[in-house]
């Protein structure tokens, strides 16, 4: 089968419709419908990823457009997992919105996609490293939206709302840590050192520290607003690490993480 990006809307739009309907159903309290619709959307979307993988003859993880593809897939996955585990009604609408944003970016700004994969990326560590990172990013995307909502509205965040943030950050951090460690092991296989303070690595470390700072602050500080601002700051660091690095003057021509 030959799948390319021209087929993307035929899969992305039905999947997105299913996720939006799932969000509506979760607000109406229809649990089975929520699960069924979310799963249907995920299945449709994953079919596209899988077919693209086969026709590219390599995992679609290299270009920015390809990582956005995984992000759009993981946002609703995280949403439905969190809904299943903690029964938060709002989470599906959050994650459907995030998925929609990334699908739109891919529709409006498709990037050049080719088949080549440079030798450093031909590694069994490649797929788990990026996929685990994208999953963590999806968690942090959800918690950032939540933090903004809590900050914008007038009344202070309640304890149980802060606990949701803590849970999302802890889960995201466990994935972020695993992604980083897989990267370190891979780097020692490919380049001969676990960590070399490459700009991408430096910003990954900054992001990691920022989220850990949030968790430590929550252990001793009653101040919720500072903690919520910290979540937004951490997400900005994550954006610099993810794509901002390409525009950062201090990183120009310095990173071996440019593909």
């Amino acid at each position, binding site marked *: 089968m030959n799948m390319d990006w021209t087929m993307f809307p035929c899969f992305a739009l039905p999947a997105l419709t299913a996720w939006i309907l799932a969000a509506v159903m979760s607000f109406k309290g229809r649990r089975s419908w929520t699960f069924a619709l979310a799963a249907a959307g995920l299945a449709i979307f994953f079919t596209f990823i899988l077919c693209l993988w086969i026709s590219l003859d390599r995992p679609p993880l290299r270009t920015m457009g390809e990582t956005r593809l995984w992000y759009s897939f993981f946002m609703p996955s995280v949403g439905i997992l969190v809904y299943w585990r903690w029964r938060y009604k709002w989470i599906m609408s959050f994650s459907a919105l995030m998925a929609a944003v990334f699908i739109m970016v891919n529709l409006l700004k498709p990037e050049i996609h080719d088949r080549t994969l440079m030798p450093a990326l031909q590694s069994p560590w490649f797929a788990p490293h990026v996929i685990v990172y994208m999953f963590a990013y999806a968690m942090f995307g959800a918690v950032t939206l939540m933090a903004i909502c809590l900050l914008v509205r007038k009344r202070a965040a309640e304890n149980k709302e802060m606990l949701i943030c803590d849970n999302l950050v802890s889960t995201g951090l466990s994935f972020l840590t695993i992604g980083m*460690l897989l990267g370190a092991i891979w780097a020692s296989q490919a380049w001969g050192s676990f960590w070399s303070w490459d700009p991408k690595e430096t910003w990954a470390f900054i992001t990691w520290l920022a989220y850990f700072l949030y968790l430590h602050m929550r252990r001793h500080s009653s101040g919720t607003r500072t903690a919520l601002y910290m979540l937004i700051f951490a997400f900005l660091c994550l954006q610099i690490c993810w794509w901002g690095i390409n525009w950062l003057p201090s990183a120009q021509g310095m990173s071996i993480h440019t593909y």
Partner: protein
Amino acid sequence: MTEKLISRPGLITGVSLTLAGLILQLLIGPVRWQALDTPVNFILLAAFPAILFTTYRIFGNSSAVMWLGSARAASASIAWTLVMVLIMGLIRQQPLPIGFEDMPAYLHFPGLHDMRTNWSFVLIFLWLLTALGMALIRVCIPLKIKRIAFLLNHLGLFVALLAGALGTPQNRHYRLTLKEGESSSQIIDPVGQPHAIPFTIELKDFDVTFYESDDYDRSNQIPKKFVSTVGISKSGKRDGTYSISVNHPARIGHWRVYQYGYDTGSDPEHAASTFEIVCNPWHGLFLTGILIMFAGAIALFVQTSKRKETAV
């Protein structure tokens, strides 16, 4: 309880360490990691945890030591480390070329272009390591099973950071370029000094395959794979033949040989292959730290998903 990000002791500690670092940077120039070369690093590996433990045992009731192992001190030390690493991320890092360290110390001031040898960075890093160690002792002795995620996360990071820092002086990276048929048992470092390596490496064969393209000009082609076949011999005896490509290094004792690059030059039939030859005796300890952190990340995930349901 406070709304503040950093409490007063955290602010005072951070400012003092940063200032002390700046003074040291002005007076004696950048940190020379080479000063920690064997046996100093092995002594520190044993001494540092021992000092932390003894301090905790003797002064454990003093407010300063109690503070050092607290969550507040953890936040403060993480926040200061974050500031230092942010500087590293925002200011282009360009270590001085080898041979320039002997310039007058004040010319390295404030040394923000090479944070790894910046005294403020190193002192803040030492504080982070101390806070980590103290927190481990405070929380994990005696060990309770519900503290397992805490133990693994903090211990793994402690081991990895310690191995990374103490291994620095012994972590050697060299480049070596060979043409087919050539062999060498010494490498030239970036200053031009020859160094002997404990084996002889001979490039027997080198192959590049390119991605198919319509373009016949090789300089525009993208390599798919490049493989060096090398023979290794130790003190005249043949050790074996290795096939080395990117992501597939050869391991010879503490040494690893990586495929770094190649140069087809004008004569594509006799390409030159470049290797990165690495010796890091601390590889194993760093890897141990990473694996402990790996287990810690899984434990954190399990612990979080077991938390009480708090439906909204």
